[in-house]
């Protein structure tokens, strides 16, 4: 069964450093998402991406964040200058287009620890 994959599973970085989280969505999906979950808190929407552009973003997704689909398979989230409060589990998700677009399939997550 096709699945969303994410790398790395755990990333430790120092405050102020740039990090790139990588995701490989399901191959025929057209919509891509990033969510995050700070420890002990709810899963929060960050951004959705379609047709090589951002379709919606949350207030969390400020200028420090960017997303990219550098090739036909990867979808990345970049944090330019990490802060302690960026420590969280980051989930990538994807969905098909059309009437089947509502189901979002999630990856296993990348745990980001900023020290």
């Amino acid at each position, binding site marked *: 069964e096709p699945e969303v994959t994410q790398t790395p599973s755990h990333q430790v970085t120092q405050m102020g450093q740039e990090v790139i989280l990588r995701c490989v969505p399901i191959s025929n999906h057209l919509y891509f998402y990033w969510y995050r979950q700070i420890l002990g808190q709810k899963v929060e929407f960050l951004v959705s991406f379609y047709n090589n552009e951002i379709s*919606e973003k949350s207030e969390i997704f400020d200028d420090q964040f960017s997303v990219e689909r550098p090739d036909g398979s990867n979808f990345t989230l970049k944090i330019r200058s990490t802060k302690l409060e960026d420590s969280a589990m980051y989930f990538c998700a994807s969905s098909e*287009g059309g009437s089947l677009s*509502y189901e979002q399939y999630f990856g296993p997550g990348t745990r980001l620890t900023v020290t």
Partner: protein
Amino acid sequence: AQSVTQPDIHITVSEGASLELRCNYSYGATPYLFWYVQSPGQGLQLLLKYFSGDTLVQGIKGFEAEFKRSQSSFNLRKPSVHWSDAAEYFCAVGPLLTGGGNKLTFGTGTQLKVEL
């Protein structure tokens, strides 16, 4: 703004007992409702979804949920819990958009513990 409330942070049930996890939502239009499960170290797995039709929906692993518009609820149920059901359960709501790109709003989750 859409929101989801899961009033129970932790629930403990005995194996074989029935289970009901509560979910209340706030949304200004017809919602699209989901239940996801997260096992330790795993991603979010979709259990079931509702967007129209029969208000009682069946999902994977023997779970079902009932949509009650009058109560703004979408409670998850299972008649007989198995030890492997121990996990965290998230209710989520999203808008009904044609084409896709709908962001999901999640509840805070309910941690289920199963006693043998």
